[in-house]
């Protein structure tokens, strides 16, 4: 009955369902938070510092550091001492002509003595007082063609054993038929050798006493007694003396610094407190002095800055004679307090000319070298993130392509991605992303204007954080822009960095400074049943 009533009603057109369109469409909006996160400078450091180039001071100030060992010498690896020398002593016809011999009778013992100086040359006023051998030998070779027996004594007050007894070696020439030959080896381990300075050499003396027992035979022409003393494979425990306090190092040159030419934007980077720390470890009994002279930085535009050091020359401490075997540590700091080093870096130098002179500290003249002595110089370059930069621009081009499914612009009409930031970093980021087609023609830009994407925080006069900046950026992908994404093949990213205060003051980066962000999305959909 109800159906009949409906059919007869004057509004039956409302119920003619065969005329009902099946098309339906809704256009809901959806707004939702997507992701949020936070990254502190400490996080950033941990992320990118896989090589330990980044650290932080106790107060959290971050620094970049690079340390390298400039010199590391173990004395036992260096040939400081001539490792062998020898001397030949020769007794021959002179004996036959000697009146002692001529007047002697058979059975008489006749002494013939000679002394020989052994030595090696040294530079300048270098003087070696003594050497204690760790290794080496004295090889003595004797050959006698005299038709007489006898005794040969070799001795030296310069060479003493570990009990400080002078060296003395007596050899019996047992053969009188002219065929005597003898060889002897003396291990020098523990022996002490005193030397004298003679001219440009250090020398010591060996004494030879040949006692012949007259056999009645003549001394014929050619008869001789030859003695060869060979100091071989010498090594030492210690050397005492005085090294010539004159120059031991003198070098000059020009270093190219290409980084500023390669990355010109770095010229806008100013460092407030760059530092070079030089650490020394010295167990040589040699106190050094190092003098830097004419260190001049020159920028591409010709600007120069000369390094001025407040404390100069640099002294590298050494243990004195009372502390043999110990190590003296030294530290040389080149920073704002000790120099104008900052000025040199902040002109963006392309070259650095220098002259280095090294010598011994003349206040101490009791020098020594041990076989265990070590000399090490380590340089640490430290750049605290107390800096400023202006007009620092970065640019990169990335490949981009939507997935196979692309974006269904029939359904998604409008997407707005909002990025909210709370920034404690004293750094402003300007960002623009250009969408390019395959011919690198700009199709569109992600941001509608060149507004600052990430404002810097506010800092005080010391460059420390006063208040974080808060900002919100919206990226609107309307239908046309979404559609154009299909043609995008590259993204050209341009970023500019600027520290707080428009880059005109130094700012500090502490590890607890953070950047918090929230990303939310607004999307407008149009869902039509006939387009699904």
């Amino acid at each position, binding site marked *: *009955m*109800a159906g009949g*009533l*409906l059919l*007869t*009603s*004057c*509004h039956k*057109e*409302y*119920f*003619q*369902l065969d*005329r*009902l*369109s099946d*098309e*339906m*469409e*809704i*256009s*809901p*909006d*959806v*707004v*939702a*938070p*997507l*992701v*949020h*996160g*936070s*990254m502190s400078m400490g*996080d950033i450091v941990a*992320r990118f510092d896989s090589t330990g180039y980044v650290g932080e001071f106790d107060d959290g100030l971050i620094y970049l550091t690079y340390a390298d060992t400039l010199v590391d010498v173990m004395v036992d690896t260096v040939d400081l001492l001539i490792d062998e020398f020898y001397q030949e002593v020769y007794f021959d016809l002179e004996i036959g002509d000697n009146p002692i011999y001529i007047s002697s009778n058979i059975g008489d013992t006749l002494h013939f003595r000679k002394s020989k100086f052994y030595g090696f040359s040294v530079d300048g006023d270098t003087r070696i007082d003594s050497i204690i051998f760790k290794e080496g030998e004295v090889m003595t070779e004797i050959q006698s063609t005299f038709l007489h027996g006898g005794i040969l004594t070799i001795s030296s007050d310069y060479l003493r054993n570990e009990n400080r007894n002078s060296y003395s070696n007596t050899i019996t020439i047992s053969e009188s038929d002219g065929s005597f030959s003898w060889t002897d080896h003396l291990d020098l381990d523990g022996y002490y050798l005193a030397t004298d300075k003679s001219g440009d050499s250090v020398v010591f003396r060996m004494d030879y006493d040949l006692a012949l027992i007259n056999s009645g035979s003549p001394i014929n022409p050619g008869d001789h007694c030859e003695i060869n003393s060979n100091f071989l494979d010498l090594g030492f425990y210690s050397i005492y003396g005085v090294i010539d306090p004159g120059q031991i190092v003198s070098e000059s040159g020009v270093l190219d610094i290409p980084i500023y030419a390669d990355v010109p934007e770095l010229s806008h980077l100013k460092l407030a407190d760059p530092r070079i720390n030089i650490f020394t470890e010295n167990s040589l009994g040699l106190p050094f002095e190092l003098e830097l002279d004419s260190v001049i930085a020159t920028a591409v535009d010709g600007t120069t800055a000369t390094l001025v050091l407040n404390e100069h020359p640099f002294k590298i401490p050494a243990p004195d004679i009372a502390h043999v075997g110990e190590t003296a540590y030294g530290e040389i700091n080149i920073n704002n307090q000790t120099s104008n080093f900052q000025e040199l870096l902040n002109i963006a130098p392309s070259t650095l000319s220098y002259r280095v002179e090294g010598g011994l500290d003349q206040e101490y003249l009791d020098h020594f070298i041990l076989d265990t002595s070590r000399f090490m110089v380590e340089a640490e370059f430290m750049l605290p993130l107390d800096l400023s930069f202006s007009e620092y621009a970065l640019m990169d081009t990335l490949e981009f392509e939507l997935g196979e499914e692309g974006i269904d612009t029939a359904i998604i009409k409008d997407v707005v991605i*909002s990025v909210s930031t709370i920034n404690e970093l004293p750094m402003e980021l300007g960002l623009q992303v250009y969408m390019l087609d395959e011919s690198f023609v700009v199709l569109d830009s992600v941001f509608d204007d060149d507004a600052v994407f990430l404002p810097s925080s506010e800092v005080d006069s010391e460059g420390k954080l006063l208040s974080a900046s808060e900002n919100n950026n919206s990226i609107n992908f309307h239908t046309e822009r979404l559609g154009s994404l299909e043609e995008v093949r590259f993204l050209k990213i341009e970023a500019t960095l600027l520290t707080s205060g428009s880059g005109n003051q130094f700012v500090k980066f502490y590890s607890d400074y953070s950047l918090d*962000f*929230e*990303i*939310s*999305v*607004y999307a*407008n*959909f149009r869902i*039509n049943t006939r387009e699904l």
Partner: protein
Amino acid sequence: MRMKRSIIIGLGLILGALLQLRAQPSNSLYFMHGVPQFNRVNPARQPACGFYIGMPLLSPLSTELSSSSLAWEDLVYPHPTEDSLITFLHPEGDKQAFLNQLKPLNYVVSDLGTSLFSLGFRTGAGFFTLDVTSRVEGSLYYPGDLARLVLEGADEGETYILNGMGTDLSAFDEIALGWSGAIGDKLQIGVRGKFLFGLGNVYTSNSQLEVTTSEDVWNIESDMEFDVSLPFAEVVYDADGIIEDVIVDDDITNLNPMAMARLAFNKNNFGLGLDLGIDYKPSESWHLSASVLDIGYIRWTDEVHEVSYNAVYDYTSLEVNPFDFLGETGESNYFDSTFSELSDTLSGALEFTQGEIYNSRLHTKLFVGTSWYVTPKINFGLLSRTDFLRDKVVEQLTASANFAAGRFLNFTLSYSYINSYLKNMGTGISFNAGPLNLYLISDNTLNLIFWPQEAQSANLWFGMNLIFGYKQFNKVDKDRPLVY
């Protein structure tokens, strides 16, 4: 597949019960004295006969569809420029007008059914009735903000209040025994007791849900609890507490008579109900009456399950490691992760458990009416009806003009204010030919004819009874003067 089949069978059972339900009483019936079942609306009423018996399945056959907010024309209307019909969801449809029609909480009531057995008889102690009825009380509640959320989306700074969302659906059999008696000449009272046997139930015992959306946070607060009794099926849960299968009793599937009888009068889901009525005639011209129907409840104990959804959740986006986010993981994966986390969290708050015994109350209705008799055969009535739904109290007003042309014909013309709609014009007509009684009643007859697209509710009662012992009441009428 098996689960799907089982659910379909279960739903079929519920719909089957719906087909047998006794619909919400028609307001126009309240003043239809020629219809024996008019005492269904007020148990104090006594049919003008000594005995009646309703035809099985036709005493009455009834249907009702009622929407609190939306009419047909809010859903379907002519295309503004083309010769076709469109829905409000069509691109040319007016979605805002659709949303404007919705209230914070809206409902749809749909009933269809009949009594299985109905008789009444008069004794010296009064008039007694006995009715066996299969009933389904079904209502669906939907918040206006739900439609707003679907059509307009989750917008910035918006709060969507979805409180009250849910459904109440009770299928039960009722054995009702009524009595009406006179106290003096002017007062009649009536009472009807009911024994209720639950067939199945879905009961929204609590429904609080608010969603606030913004680009900073999505806040979802829910405190929802649904109780379900499915005596005809076994619900199987997996290890995670998720419903794995619903297995309908084979005897029910095979329509085993004994099983169906056990289900129809399931003592494990037992309830009690009560109707009360009063009819007072201060004068020959004025009748005052009132009734309260369906005071009662059913205690559901058989195959009870509970579905709860309790969550207080602030979704403030997914926390990411920025280096991963900008690295290999990629932002698109994070978008997927974001919504996966959101859906996982929200779905994680949904719990299915073996439920505890619970009660569901009947939808109580209060009728208060008055009639003014111009003549014994012509009267005008005014009726207030108040329905106490779960979270709503719904008021209806009906004015009627009632005519009697001897015993042969009773006719009612009514006007009702229902669901804020002013143009409900109803009619009722009852024929008596000997013992045969036929009637057809609707509160919306004329608006279904003249402006059906505006109708927010429609009901129709059709009944057939055999009436005996009516002559003595005709005689009384004959004794009345022709001119009052």
